């Protein structure tokens, strides 16, 4: 070819048997830097592009992965034993997390919707010399104020009416022979109360905002109070006399479970009660809220009712669903997570142990690689990559098995399996991290070995 004769003498091709075009091109390529280098003092004068081209392919990520894969794959039996610890660790982690999520979903489904949609708002009380005293006040327009809060469906409030020992009766008869009985309680209520308490009208109707605004003399009777007063139907417009004033009975209610005392009460519209009996304040507001609105309502209701002194109003938000049950679940989870961590630790130690063993076994290989030009960094990278691959394999298998167990348990218990897929991926990657950590010490040991000592090791 065009190479000068002298050059050919100094650097003839090493492989004259293979004069392929490619080989020739390669030969020219590698000849170029050498001829430049051959000039004295020009060692560093090799064109940057050539140096870059030569060093660019020096044990890149692709080579690293290929070598690590070979190293991992050369002993399948041992690989299996090595990854068992990681598989168990990651697997139990996924199972624990998956079953916890599934069970939580299950609890949410069984969740008592009725119990979790009630909020009771009361003025705060303080204990003073004269007993308990309310420090706050529920305003009359409580329905408007609370109704504007997001998540509130129904609002109603009530307060006791002091009738000052007056009689409550259906007929005005003074019969000295009859032992005087305690009159049924008289309660003032806002129009929304029945809905807020999810009560039921047995007959007739509940009063509305119109009755309230006009202060109509109407009452609604609790079911037991109606029986006591001998009123069973309202179509003939019976009346109840309170303090000798007649009030038309327009309805009878039942099923007011949250305030069962209402069953024994005569309920007046708030406006009527204020007009006739000077009601001082409301004692309690009942709110029916959307599921999950508890925290919001609990926070905003006092502000809505007493903007200047929200601390004087207390809102009793429904307790978090099955708090006790969840607490137990949490304990169980903690135990299983601890077990998973232990399994993972054991898995990591297993990887460390086997990698250390394989470093010792492969001394000859390490020495050879060093002799072939591998730097200590290359050796560290390779052993780290191998243990990381082992860890990742264990993580992937463990995560897959864990998902399978969660699904199987859910099928057996007829549950809906709920599992955050991101979490599963994180668990699998945790296996990789375990492998990396476990491989760090053996890899450093491998790299610290002197090439000569390594070469004197086991023959290949």
């Amino acid at each position: 070819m065009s190479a000068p004769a002298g050059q050919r003498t100094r650097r003839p091709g090493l492989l004259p048997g293979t004069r392929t075009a490619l080989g020739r091109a390669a030969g020219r390529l590698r000849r170029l830097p050498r001829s430049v280098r051959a000039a004295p003092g020009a060692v560093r004068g090799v064109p940057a592009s050539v140096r870059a081209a030569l060093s660019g392919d020096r044990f890149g990520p692709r080579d690293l992965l290929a070598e690590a894969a070979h190293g991992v794959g050369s002993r399948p039996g041992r690989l299996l034993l090595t990854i068992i610890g990681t598989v168990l660790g990651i697997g139990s982690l996924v199972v624990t997390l998956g079953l916890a999520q599934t069970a939580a979903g299950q609890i949410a489904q069984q969740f008592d919707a009725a119990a979790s949609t009630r909020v009771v708002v009361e003025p705060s009380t303080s204990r003073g010399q004269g007993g308990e005293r309310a420090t706050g006040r529920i305003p009359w327009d409580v329905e408007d104020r609370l109704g504007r809060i997001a998540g509130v469906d129904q609002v109603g409030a009530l307060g006791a009416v002091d009738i000052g020992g007056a009689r409550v009766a259906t007929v005005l008869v003074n019969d000295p022979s009859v032992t005087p009985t305690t009159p049924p309680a008289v309660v003032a209520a806002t129009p929304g109360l029945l809905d807020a308490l999810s009560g039921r009208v047995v007959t007739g109707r509940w009063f509305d905002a119109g009755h309230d605004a006009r202060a109509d003399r109407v009452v609604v009777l609790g079911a037991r109070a109606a029986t006591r007063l001998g009123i069973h139907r309202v179509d003939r417009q019976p009346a109840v006399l309170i303090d000798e004033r007649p009030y038309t009975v327009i309805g009878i209610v039942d099923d007011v479970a949250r305030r069962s005392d209402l069953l024994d009460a005569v309920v007046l519209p708030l406006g009527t009660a204020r007009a006739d009996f000077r009601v001082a304040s409301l004692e309690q507001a009942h709110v029916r809220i959307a599921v999950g609105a508890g925290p919001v309502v609990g926070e905003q209701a006092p502000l809505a009712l007493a903007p200047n002194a929200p601390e004087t109003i207390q809102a009793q938000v429904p307790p978090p669903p099955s708090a006790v049950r969840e607490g137990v679940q949490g304990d169980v989870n903690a135990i299983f997570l601890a077990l998973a961590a232990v399994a993972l630790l054991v898995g990591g130690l297993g990887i460390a142990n086997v990698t250390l063993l394989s470093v010792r076994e492969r001394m000859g290989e390490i020495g050879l690689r060093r002799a072939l030009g591998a730097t200590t960094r290359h050796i560290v990278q390779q052993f780290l990559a191998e243990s990381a691959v082992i860890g990742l394999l264990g993580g992937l298998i463990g995560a897959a098995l864990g998902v399978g167990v969660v699904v199987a348990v859910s099928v057996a218990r007829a549950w809906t399996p709920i599992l955050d897929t991101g979490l599963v991926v994180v668990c699998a990657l945790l296996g990789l991290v375990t492998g990396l950590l476990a491989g760090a010490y053996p890899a450093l040991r491998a790299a610290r070995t002197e090439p000569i000592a390594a070469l004197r090791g086991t023959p290949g």
Partner: protein
Amino acid sequence: MTAPTTEPAAPTPAAAHEPPVIELRDLRRTFPGEPPVEALRGVDLTVHRGDYVSVVGPSGSGKSTLLHILGLLDRPTAGDYVLDGVPTRELSEQDRSRLRGGRIGFVFQSFHLLPHRSVLDNVLLATLYSGVPRATRRTRALAALERVGMSHRLDFLPPVLSGGERQRVAVARAVVTSPDVLLADEPTGNLDSSNSAGVLDLFDELHRDGLTLVVITHDDVVSAHARRRVRISDGLLDEVA
């Protein structure tokens, strides 16, 4: 380049103004101990491009130490080692690894082939660390294997090969990166006489093609193939006529 050169590769006039491949100047290597062991006590050696040098000596004479220093696997206690014009004394470990991968080919007595990797993979291994462009690695490995006559065993694993075949693969691995010098440490130590002869013939061919060889041996048959013989004893070198 189109035809293999047949002229002897003894130092040519051109080599006179070109730096020698290997130049040792008053090289010493002392191993700490009580008393310290002086493995090399002031060694001077110049190997020109195309030389075929054998280093002979009894065991314990410092042969292996010399080879390790030549191969950049060990550092001298004192003295200079210039490899192809590059003084290696001040080089970092990383640069030494780089030089080792690019300019030195090793052939070991015990072959040092990876038992779980195919013949082709074993040869490719040398290209990983020496900066051979990825696109040409396979071509060069195949060419090197053909050069040593092992093309028919590409997918075999080393344990099923005979000793001679293994050493041929090792030689292919050593030359695939086109090193400046091939260092062989008792290359026939584990081989019977016929396999030895085959490997030595291969060395002769490589030498004819221009490769610089340094063979360390205690076997006179091996050293007889070299064009230049150096004897080492008690850490001192002398030229054998």
